[in-house]
């Protein structure tokens, strides 16, 4: 009898604990937790591996964990598709309250939302912008054995016969790699719609297409090509930076201005939280990212990847995004691709 009673007490105690724990759980998720983060964190790179978003996500995760700025393990997930639009849709809807899932993105978050063949009804306003961390620049790249010695050679050839050359990039038409590829041509007086552009799943696949002679030139970002420049497989014809790069081995590459093409394109990369991120989580990340930006390890990581440091956090970043939105609207209008 006493035995039975004891068991009963035990059971009800266990049941009570479980119920309490359950209550506790639901409270944590709804109103933001003071102890944030209480579990593992995820940064999503909305592309295949090997491209700029992916590398940036992995660098953030790595330095955050290595310097113990954030003790909880950060994993990076790849969610490719539609130039980032596939994951954007999920992120803006299903994950809107998930404080533990962050996303690295760059101008496509604006472009996809602005262009005519808009594939994303969601833009940066459907996220919580946390910080801009880096800036990178577009690059027009050819194989080392390519007959085109300079960007003007290449563009003259395209001008003469746009069907003869194939350009490629790691994202869909109207998205960033495409803009990087088309922009110099457009400014050079070539009809942007005539230029042949083949889209691949991410910068890595585009690079494979270039190396395998399935594309004559690719538009991508400097950080994707650095390793291949060092190994001597490719040459960079031009960068879309305002002035020459200071990265070792890439100092000689002309900017578009050097070639008489009055244009530049900055690829900023930043990290975003979900739309309904709790204030606790937002403050936590803005603080940690600001600290990250000061770390020597982070600077070393940036150098290694060939990224330039550029930092804006919280509301500054949101303001910057508003300005960028204006600039990209202009480019897209010029290209006839504005929504």
């Amino acid at each position, binding site marked *: 009898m006493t035995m039975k009673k004891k068991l009963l007490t035990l059971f009800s105690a266990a049941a009570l604990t479980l119920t309490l724990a359950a209550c506790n759980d639901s409270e944590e998720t709804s109103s933001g937790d003071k102890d944030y983060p209480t579990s593992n964190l995820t940064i999503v790179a909305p592309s295949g591996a090997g491209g700029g978003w992916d590398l940036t996500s992995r660098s953030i995760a*790595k330095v955050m964990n290595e310097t113990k700025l954030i003790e909880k393990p950060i994993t990076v997930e790849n969610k490719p598709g539609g130039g980032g639009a596939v994951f954007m849709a999920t992120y803006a809807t299903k994950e809107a309250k998930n404080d533990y899932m962050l996303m690295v993105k760059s101008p496509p978050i604006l472009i996809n939302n602005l262009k005519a063949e808009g594939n994303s009804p969601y833009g940066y306003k459907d996220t919580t912008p946390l910080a801009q961390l880096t800036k990178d620049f577009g690059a027009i790249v050819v194989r080392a054995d390519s007959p085109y010695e300079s960007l003007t050679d290449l563009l003259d050839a395209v001008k003469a016969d746009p069907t003869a050359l194939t350009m490629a990039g790691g994202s869909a038409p109207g998205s960033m790699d495409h803009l990087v590829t088309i922009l110099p041509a457009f400014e050079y007086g070539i009809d942007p719609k005539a230029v042949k552009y083949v889209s691949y*799943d991410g910068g890595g*696949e585009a690079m494979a297409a270039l190396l395998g002679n399935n594309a004559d030139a690719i538009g991508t970002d400097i950080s994707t090509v650095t390793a291949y420049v060092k190994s001597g497989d490719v040459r960079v014809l031009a960068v879309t930076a305002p002035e020459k790069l200071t990265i070792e081995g890439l100092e000689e590459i002309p900017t578009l201005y050097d070639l008489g093409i009055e244009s530049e394109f900055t690829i900023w990369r930043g990290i975003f939280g979900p739309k309904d991120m709790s204030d606790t989580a937002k403050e936590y990340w803005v603080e940690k990212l600001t600290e990250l930006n000061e770390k020597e390890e982070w600077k070393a990581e940036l150098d290694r990847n060939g990224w330039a440091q550029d930092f804006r956090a919280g509301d500054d970043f949101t303001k910057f995004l508003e300005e960028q939105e204006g600039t990209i609207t202009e480019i897209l209008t010029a290209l006839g691709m504005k929504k």
Partner: protein
Amino acid sequence: MSTIQYLLDGFAIAFQWHNILFALLGVIIGTAVGVLPGIGPMSGVALLIPVTATLTSGLPIEMAATSSIILLAGVYYGAMYGGSTTSILLNTPGESSSVVTTLDGYQMARQGRAGAALSIAAIGSFIAGIIALIGLVLLARPLSKVAINFGPAEYFSLMLLGLAAVSGLAGKSITKALIMTVLGLLLGTIGIDAVSGIARFTYDQPVLFSGIEFLTVAVGLFALGEVFKTIFEKDGADEPIAKIDRILPTKKDLKDSAAPIARGSFLGFFLGVLPGAGATLASFFAYITEKKISKNPESFGKGNIAGVASPESANNAASGGAMIPLLTLGIPGSGTTAILMGAFIMYNIQPGPLLFEEHPDVAWGLIASMFLGNLMLLILNMPLVRVFAKIIQTPKRFLLPIIIAISIFGVYAVQYTTFDLFLLLGCGIAGYFFAKNDFPVAPLVLALVLGPMIENNMRRALTISNGEFSIFIAKPLSLIFLVIAVLWILIPILMKLRGKNVIINEEG
């Protein structure tokens, strides 16, 4: 230094006691990851990256990198060993690369040959693993050149060949197989189009933006379809349970599987090298090839051991082959290798053209450890066969709920959406009616994988050629694939017309 010298140095690294331990840990976790549905090699490796980082934190950076990668790679190829287990025993594919193994593996299990099927899967995986490694050591550089020369036109023609070969998965009626193929292709168009970025057939539902998940459909059609069949037809009440006669394969089994293992290994390895093709396609292609060249194609789908040996060898060889573009070009060919690449980068090691020069210890240490890991897996898996094979003796009334639970858990763990659970149940019911009316489900599943790849590569190729379809015959490799595809379909028809008595899939 010669390749052999590098490899010996690699073995010296792989045989350091802590690296042996890391390899062992990796393959054990990998086997578990493979056996458990839902947690596939991709999520398994991703989850372990932070853990290995902690485990190796005491070591100097280069050594830490080697040890971590050894462990993570162990999980990758270990999962390929374990992936066949639930396919064979429960008709529930745990990984997409094991889907085709269900066709004959489950039938073998029902006939009491579960032990033989599991053993041959392990042995085949081992041999394939070793063949792929030898290929990796000897052919890495030249093959990586071939892999990048594989352009959109070549991919298109190869995938088309796969589709032409789909008749190899047909049951009694080729018409029904074609109907199912088209259904699969149609389902494959759902989602955001990767080439133009336009949403198709999504009706503004974000869950559909990323398309219909292949594994959900496969598990629904195969596993739940079988469950519903048993329930609806009440054949599970007290049917005698298949007795397991023996655990090890017979001499005849071994003889029958030797050639399929060899063919599966080579096919899998070469398909693995191509970025984007991957282990799933390799297993399908291997199965279809075996059925095509077999003397008794009608025995496939009824428990032919070659139908287990060949695809299981192929998916393992493919995982070895996929290391080539990763290590030599820095281009990951599959989701899992993409995550492995992330692990390299975490240690400031950039896989790619410079890896073998800048970090020979890491590269060769990894390759050598994979020889060791494969051997460990064989030794580890053979005794496990005895344990797993017992599952099949569980009475149906216990087994069915387990299969349902595993299917639901597995699908949810991959997709995290309730939509996929409904899709799973829907596919289960559809699977039952398909099976009841002799509509083969394998062609649907294969078409679902192939469809988007065929479409995207065709459009890329046509952009390159300015809309000229001649690009597909102008490229030699592409032409060869197309010719084989045409012959594949025409020869049986011609032979039939000439009145030869050949076994083809007759109209049912």
